[in-house]
């Protein structure tokens, strides 16, 4: 049974990866080639990839008989799924397809990383057998997904700011004010969920390891990321930071997110390293 589900998962996963790649190419063709029809097709293709990706996650969950959020592969693929989800919500809400040209590469980068990980389904060690794991990692997926979208939108902001004379960019990219606002909203959502990630992680750590905070490198880097985005949010108020400065800050924040996720697991000794 497990093999059958994993077979379906594998098909859907690589199907999703292929569709995400196609969507990225289409979004870029739409954006660079100034072809609006390609943009519409890109959205449909991304939706197709997202549906296949969701099926892959469900298949893995059914096969493993648990929520598929317990190792590096599972988190990476869920991370990419989270970015796709948040992006599709934002595209629908703000009707700016050009965002796809900036966010789809991030999705592809993360799912590509997932594809390189070991996909074996292994039984969970006792510490991971907790309902808090599901909350902790699921909130991380949404949080990182939102930060990924903020990263893409901030990249868009910087591009639009640089090419202010370009007609197509002016027509197809939201105004600078709107891009700034979308980025802010994505960061705000990501920040709220990151706080949830840290709090659910602390509750889980208290019941599994006897302390809710122990300055483990993963915990510390999550705190550093949280502080960076806290500074971003406060500077918008205290110094009226918006626009270019805020966009650069959102880019730095996401680099920090990626380091917390990939760098800490691979470069630093951490109690969280068992997710490998």
């Amino acid at each position, binding site marked *: 049974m497990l093999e059958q589900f994993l077979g379906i998962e594998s098909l859907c996963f690589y199907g999703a990866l292929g569709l995400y790649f196609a969507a990225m190419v289409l979004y870029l063709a739409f954006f660079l080639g100034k072809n609006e029809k390609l943009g519409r097709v890109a959205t449909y293709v991304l939706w197709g990839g997202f549906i296949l990706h969701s099926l892959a996650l469900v298949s893995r969950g059914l096969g493993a008989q648990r929520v598929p959020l317990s190792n590096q592969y599972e988190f990476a693929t869920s991370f990419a799924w989270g970015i796709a989800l948040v992006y599709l919500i934002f595209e629908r809400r703000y009707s700016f397809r050009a965002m796809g040209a900036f966010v789809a590469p991030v999705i592809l980068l993360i799912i590509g990383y997932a594809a390189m990980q070991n996909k074996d389904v292994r039984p969970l060690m006792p510490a991971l057998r907790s309902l808090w794991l599901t909350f902790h990692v699921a909130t991380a997926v949404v949080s990182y997904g939102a930060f990924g979208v903020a990263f893409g939108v901030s990249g868009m902001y910087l591009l639009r700011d640089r090419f202010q004379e370009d007609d197509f960019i002016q027509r197809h990219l939201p105004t600078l004010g709107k891009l700034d606002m979308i980025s802010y909203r994505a960061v705000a959502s990501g920040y709220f969920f990151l706080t949830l990630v840290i709090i659910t992680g602390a509750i889980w750590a208290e019941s599994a390891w006897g302390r809710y905070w122990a300055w483990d490198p993963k915990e*510390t880097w999550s705190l550093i990321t949280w502080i960076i985005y806290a500074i971003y949010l406060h500077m918008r108020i205290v110094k009226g930071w918006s626009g270019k400065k805020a966009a650069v800050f959102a880019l730095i924040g996401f680099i920090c997110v990626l380091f917390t996720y990939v760098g800490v697991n691979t470069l630093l000794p951490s109690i969280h390293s068992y997710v490998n």
Partner: protein
Amino acid sequence: MGSRKGNSPVEQLGLGTGTIGKKSGGRIWGVFYGMRSGMILLALVAALSILGTLIPQGHTAEFYAQNFSGVKLSAIQFFQLDRVYSAWWYGFLILMLSINLILCNLRRFPKLLKEWRLPMVPETILPQHGTFYGTYTAPFGEPPKIAVETFFKRAGFKSFKTKETTDGLYLYASRCKAGLLGSWLSHLGLLLIIVFFFIGKLLGFEAFVYGVPGTDQVVAGTPYRIAIEAFDIEYRQDYSIHQYLTDLILYDPENGFRASGRTQVNAPFRSQGMSIYQNGTGWALDVVMQKADGSEISRTLYTSEVFEEPGESIALHYLAFYPDFIMKDGQPYTATPFLNRPVLLYSLFEEGRQVRTNVAMPGEPIRYGDTTFSFYQPRLFTVLQVVRDPGTIPAGAGGMLLLTGLFLSFYWVPKSLYGYVGADGKVWVSGFTKKNPIIYHESLSALWQTLKMGE
């Protein structure tokens, strides 16, 4: 159709975003409560926290002497970089941050209260302060008053206040007022987390006890003892571990308190304000030392322990235990977690000098000179972690406050809507919000167009 810049009662009272944290106090005091200094402190905490992730923390002085040298070693020793998060300068930064949070919240509270109590005063909302959407014209349907009321309802303001004056009709509504508290609550939550984290560290304790079933251990620093009743490991078919379980009795021999229960990973045993966690396991062995004079001494040896006796020159160091010993690629290994072919890996020391490293089976004599060691009855022991942290629950409450505050800040944004219907049929509607006013204005404009209330 035209528009004018909004001027809400909030702005008229000087409570807009621009006033927070800018007034009063000298520059020196401003360092303690200013948002800017708060940000600098946060940035410093983040930057210095990185050091603690790059330099191994909490090791012995010898460890740092072996792994670092020169300037790096001196810096580690001088700046206490081997324990960044408990270094005096890190504590000082956190203290300053806490003071900043306290003062910032205290200063903001009266303003917040004033804003919260802001009355709905239609007289202060003059038509020219609102966004003028157009002259109402009859062909589009309802009378102006009904049309504006419809607008309010469609904009999500089901209930609103009205006031009839000689100038015309004023309407006012607000929602999500609790959102005003968001930022304040989140700062309070963060402060509680920091304060109770340190209170927990100061007033709490952590101790480890270990033993085989049937033994009784003291919880260091408390009057309590733990009797280990049973210990078991549940395995899956592939020998991976499903769960570790310890049945125990916590008791106080002085006052007769007694509580029994089970602790397992992710489900600690809690009693008397203490939590007892299943922390680890290993193999314990009964080791017998036969001296030159034929006398015997026996004791239970736990992983990594050394069997040494005063006056004896030979000592046995328990290095590792393999319950189902095999050699694989020249390395000792255990095929299963069960006692099929138990083997002890040991080292012998003479006068502190290592003289032999080898393996032995149960009962097999390990002879060196006139001394003989042998081991029997290998069995699993359990390691329990006993924690009392009085800060956990209040810090958790702080976490909930922080989350609530963030939710209110981001998703419960206070909005107000003002309307005016002039005697001549002119209609003004104005919305005010501090967060994302562009979006709010756009949504109101779109709604206006949908309702075809203007020309």
